[in-house]
Each structure stands twice: as structure tokens, then as C-alpha cells.
């Protein structure tokens, strides 16, 4: 999800190629080529520029609807509706991969959540996140919280720090409703990373862009990435 203003100019993007199974886009205004996963201009007039990320999430529809009543959903394009594959993920799994990275425990098409903080990149296998949520970690010198939502499939990541203090959050176990609780047991937090009770009530953790991707694609564009292991 990218903001599309660069040097004061609003750009319109279109699909223009595939690079190792990550798509390339061009903008109508300058014809520059951009890599979708990195938002970087790889060729053309604006080469060297980077798009600014628009803060985004990948959530289940039900969860999003609860969080954002009054939100708008992209409507299906009537002509193409039949071509939207509900099983597209299974179809993609059958496709070959253009690059592979042997020597890691992950398979090419394992789905990971990729984080980049303070110059460090790390991949968190989604299976592991769902099993261990919430995960407390350190990355690029920052305390990190990776958490699966009440639906068991939406994932968010935060810098777990409030007013300059690192905090740890745990899953509240004695509750039917989804809630996180801090180590002092003094406050509850929701999946948006906001404290709903306790001394920090009303405060929110800084959310990090969490990119869901296939392992080979994430690794291909983040050569120095590590993989989360508990």
C-alpha cells in the first residue's frame, strides 16, 4: 500500500511486468518502473526515488468490519468477477518459483510476515505466529510485538513501548474475548495495540508495516533477513 505522490506529483500506476514473480509497475506520468514489494523506482526518470508506505493491514473481513464501521469495500469489477479465484492461494502453491534459497528451514512458498525495523529485517512464519501469539522479540534495537488477532489469522506488529518504556504483553487467558494484558496485570490492550484499561488507557503502540509474503520473495528482496525462531 503506497502513497502515490512523488516530488509533489501525483502518479497513476499500472501493471507493467514481472520480476522474479514480484510485479513491476509503471506510472503514467513519467513512465518510471517501480518494484511493487519495495516501492523503489528501479528504472526511468524517477530512479532512486522510493514511495512512502501508507499504513495498512491485512485482516479478515469480519474483523475489519467490526473495527471500521462505515468503511468502504472495493467492489468487484463485473466483467472480471468470475475470474476471481477463491482458491487462488492453492493455485499459486502449484506454480514454480524463479529463485530458491536452500539452507533455510523454510520452504519457498511458506507464508511469512516480514518486518523491517531500524535497518534489520526478519521473517516470522505465519504458522509460528498463530501458534505462539503474541510473540515478543527484539529487532533493530526495538522491542517488537507480533500478534495474531481474535480471528486467528489477521496479524499485526507493533513496537511494544509506551512513553519510552518497553512493555511486554501476554494473551489474557481467563477471558473469552480477545485481550492482551501487560506484565503487571494492570491494563488490557486490544488487537489495535491500544490500551483499553489501566494506567496507559487510551494510548496506542506504534504499529509496524507487516508484509505478508512468500518466503522466497521476502528473502529475494531482503538478502540480510533473519528468520524468527523461538
Amino acid at each position: 500500500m503506497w502513497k502515490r505522490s512523488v516530488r509533489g506529483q501525483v502518479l497513476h500506476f499500472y501493471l507493467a511486468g514481472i520480476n522474479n514473480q514480484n510485479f513491476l509497475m509503471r506510472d503514467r506520468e513519467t513512465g518510471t518502473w517501480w518494484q511493487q514489494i519495495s516501492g523503489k523506482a528501479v528504472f526511468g526518470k524517477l530512479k532512486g526515488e522510493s514511495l512512502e508506505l501508507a499504513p495498512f493491514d491485512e485482516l479478515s473481513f469480519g474483523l475489519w468490519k467490526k473495527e471500521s464501521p462505515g468503511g468502504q469495500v472495493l467492489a468487484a469489477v463485473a466483467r472480471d468477477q468470475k475470474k476471481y479465484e477463491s482458491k487462488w492461494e492453492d493455485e499459486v502453491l502449484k506454480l514454480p518459483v524463479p529463485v530458491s534459497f536452500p539452507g533455510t528451514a523454510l520452504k519457498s512458498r511458506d507464508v511469512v510476515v516480514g518486518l523491517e525495523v531500524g535497518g534489520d529485517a526478519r521473517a516470522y512464519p505465519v504458522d509460528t505466529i498463530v501458534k505462539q501469539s503474541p510473540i515478543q522479540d527484539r529487532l533493530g534495537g526495538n522491542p517488537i510485538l507480533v500478534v495474531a488477532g481474535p480471528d486467528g489469522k489477521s496479524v499485526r506488529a507493533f513496537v511494544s513501548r509506551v512513553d519510552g518504556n518497553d512493555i511486554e504483553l501476554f494473551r489474557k487467558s481467563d477471558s473469552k474475548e480477545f485481550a492482551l494484558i501487560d506484565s503487571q496485570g494492570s491494563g488490557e490492550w486490544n488487537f489495535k495495540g491500544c490500551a483499553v484499561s489501566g494506567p496507559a488507557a487510551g494510548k496506542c503502540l506504534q504499529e509496524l508495516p507487516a508484509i505478508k509474503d512468500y518466503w522466497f520473495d521476502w528473502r529475494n528482496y531482503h538478502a540480510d533477513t533473519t528468520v524468527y525462531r523461538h
Partner: protein
Amino acid sequence: MFDARQKSFHPIFWAMVVVGIALFFVPAFIIRPFRYQSPGALHLALVFRQLAPIGTILAASGVLGLTVWAWRAADRLQKILMAAAALLVVGSATMARMNYFEWMFHPVKQPGFEKADDAKLDDGEMVLTVSINGDARAYPVREMAYHHVVNDVVGGVPIAATY
């Protein structure tokens, strides 16, 4: 087919044919799915794609012009070769103007939206979401996996949803 003064015909004609064809086919060969592309190869492909719209037109004009000019003096085999070459170069110039990546994944020309309550989506379906200045949007992953890019304005901010 020509006397000695026209010896330079062949190298010029065939050089234009090669250039006209290469400008389209080399990047089309490099930028294809499921094939590894090194950074160098990708760069070469993009240089060719950048030059292709003008380069293929020049080559096609030159090849067509020379074909017409040489036609009457040419024998049967030469005519066949020249016509085939001209056809290929014109085809290449036409293809260089097409965005064939969008043939498979039709772009969303004018994104339409519906209220969350009206959307026919299962609660478990994944959506890409963004919220800017109180304006919340969801892009179903199933649709994005087909269209890949949607230009939108959310909360007054122009964004591109990509997948």
C-alpha cells in the same frame, strides 16, 4: 538483385530487421513469469522497453521503405524474405505499443466501492485495509490477486493499493 552500387542494401536492411525485432522480443523473453531474472538482465530488458516504442517504429519504417524500393528488382525468394521480415518488424512495433501484462489481469479503470454491510464477503475472507483521516477502505485480497493494483484516494491522500 542489385548491382554493386547497392551492396550496402543487405547490411542496412537486415540490421534494421534485427533491431526492430530485438527491441520487442528480448525484453519479452527476459520479463516472463517463472523465470529467474538477474538485475543485469532486468536492466537490459527495461532499456530495450524504453527504446522500443520509437526504435521499432523507425526500424519498421526503414524496413518497409527499403522493401518497397527494392521490390521490383527482387527475385521471388528475395520478395518472400523481405515480406516476411517486414511483417515481423511491423508486428514487433505493434506489440511494443501493447501492455500485454494487462491482457491477463485487466486493470480496474474506475474503482467502485460499496458499504461494508452491502459487500458479499465471508467474514473469513482476507482484505487489505487502510485508514487515513478517518476514511477506511478494504480491498479484498481475492480481487487484488487478480487486478494487482488499484489507484485510489483515501481521506484525501492518493494511494496505490498493490498486491
